[in-house]
């Protein structure tokens, strides 16, 4: 049986076969592992992988799983069953494509008004989480068509806080 998983944004195919003696054989790329395991409690599995034992801890993370092993922390998602947690993340460019907070937070300031115009990269909303303020910026130039939040609101990654109608003809980022 094949699973199409994503670990730390990296897609990986994992093949699972029955092995001998109640073992499971798991192949990832060209690596094949012989695995046995038991569940110690809801979140705690004890695995033996090619003879070496170890504890792994698994909890829910949206539609994926949060997995902690020897202090390392991973989020693994099932791409065949993508869920609500596939939220937009900050891209490598540093500017996400919507106005959404990077973490669960509270709106500390709204810097624009409905109907106003913004340039790309202009601060539009300040959110605060755990004493740390972050200014969310406009992903492109345009006109603010909706401000969906007010100061004090709790907001989450994926929530679009401000709608901006893109100014298409004179895209400043060209060239």
């Amino acid at each position, binding site marked *: 049986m094949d*699973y199409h*998983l994503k*670990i*730390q944004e*990296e897609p*990986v195919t*994992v093949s*699972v076969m*029955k092995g001998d003696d*109640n073992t*499971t054989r*798991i192949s*990832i790329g060209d*690596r094949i*592992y012989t*695995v*046995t*395991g*038991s*569940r*110690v*409690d*809801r*979140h*705690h*599995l004890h*695995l033996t*992988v090619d003879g070496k034992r*170890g504890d*792994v*801890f*698994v*909890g*829910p*993370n949206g539609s994926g*799983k*949060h*997995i*902690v*092993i*020897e*202090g*390392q*922390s*991973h989020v*693994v998602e*099932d791409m065949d069953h993508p869920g609500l947690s596939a939220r937009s*993340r*900050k891209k490598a460019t540093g500017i996400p494509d919507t106005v959404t907070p*990077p*973490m*669960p*937070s*509270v709106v500390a300031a709204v810097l624009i008004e409905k109907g106003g115009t913004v340039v790309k990269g202009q601060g539009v909303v300040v959110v605060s*989480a*755990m*004493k*740390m303020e972050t200014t969310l910026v406009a992903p492109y130039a345009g006109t603010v068509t909706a401000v969906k939040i007010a100061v*004090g609101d*709790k907001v989450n990654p994926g929530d679009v806080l401000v709608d901006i109608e893109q100014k298409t003809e004179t895209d400043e980022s060209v060239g």
Partner: protein
Amino acid sequence: MFKKILIANRGEIARRVMATCREMGIATVAVYSDADEHAAHVLYADEAVHIGGPEPSASYLNIDSIIAAVKQTGADAVHPGYGFLSENGDFAERCERENITFIGPPSHVIRSLGDKITARKIMEKGGVPIAPGMTRPCLDVEEMAKEAEKAGYPILIKASAGGGGKGIRVVRESSELKDAFASAVREAEAAFGDGSVYMEKYFETVRHVEIQILADRFGHVVHVLERECSVQRRHQKIIEESPSPAVTPSLRTRMGHAAIAAAKAAGYVNAGTVEFLLAPDLSFYFLEVNARLQVEHPVTEMITGIDLVRHQILIAAGQRLSLRQEDIEGRGHAIECRIYAEDPENDFFPSPGTITCIKEPSGPGIRNDCGVYSGVEVPVYYDPIISKLIVHGETREYAIERMVKALKDYVILGVRTPVPFMIDVLESEAFQSGEIYTHFIRTHFPDWKPDTRTHDLALIAWVMDELTGNQRAAAGPDSNRIPMPYETLGGWRMA
């Protein structure tokens, strides 16, 4: 002795203070905001009083509400912890007026040490070395230029009213002074309504070393050795240790004496910390006094065996300090890692959420001061600290090994933590060499990424969790039971 103490704080520090109160047979009162009804510190107290909405200003910074809680419960004293109202002169004064013992220094001491220029003046007068620079507010760039020439560039412009990093400018050469001065004044004016600034010499490569002090009401002051706090990110300490790899016995004595002089100059009472900058030539300069219990106080407790909170309470109750300077000796090496709810893979942004599972490391030489439990929510409103993991070892090398193992044994599901980052820092040659300056993280870990060595294992874990019936195990009445391997694979084999 007090019969009942109200702890005007939350999280790990509230629990830590309550632990000592319980040992002393003193009843404890927790206060909590709407966001903290089920918080760990509330469960741990004998009584708990709701004090307001989730925003700190409505609750943990709400002086009226906290004073009302003291009166309602009949507490004798208030322990402010760190942060929130711990260095708020108004709160300390209000307690004084209401005849409630504030477990900390007198309000006038908090106020004078809270003002940067006043503190510098007190220290200069007390013979404590301060960084070359000014000890009066300045509104004239020419005056500052003269002082800057004397101190030598680079220099630092700071707002006298100070706080939160506002109004601070590094000036590397004289040509930059005028613009930097103007912009610092503007920012200070905007932030504090007071544009006056002053100037100190700026040290590029410097350690942050602080000395713990204890002072009773009778003028007896001791220092309780140093802590090395140079490993910082965004000006926030993340790893602290004691002793400092840079501090020799004779330097320790000199810095200790300077800290005692600082405490005496300020009329300090209770536990406090004198922060110094330590230059590579081992010259040191007064930075500020933290007029409260520090976050990192456990490293001092681990190497000295002294319970600082107990001494805070005894001092506040008017007792004489039982410790003599010659009794205070460090032994071995202690390290603290601050475990925040933050995502090291997402620029260390806060990572609030529900802790679905926490397993704390334990065993020889390990202490975890923890403010959460499995199932609790880490709210978005407060400091992201989940716990402080502290280890003690015979030597620095052994302590590092112990901390790495403890970090690897630490399980937190539901929120992200810097544990993988901490492991890499502790295992680095740079950290192990002890050559640690405040730019350590910027220099050695400018663009950290988690390694991928456990990726295959994580994928295997995902599969085995699926196969061993996560859903069924969770739903059944016996989910605590360990299924046999055959059983655990049964569901899958039949599928």
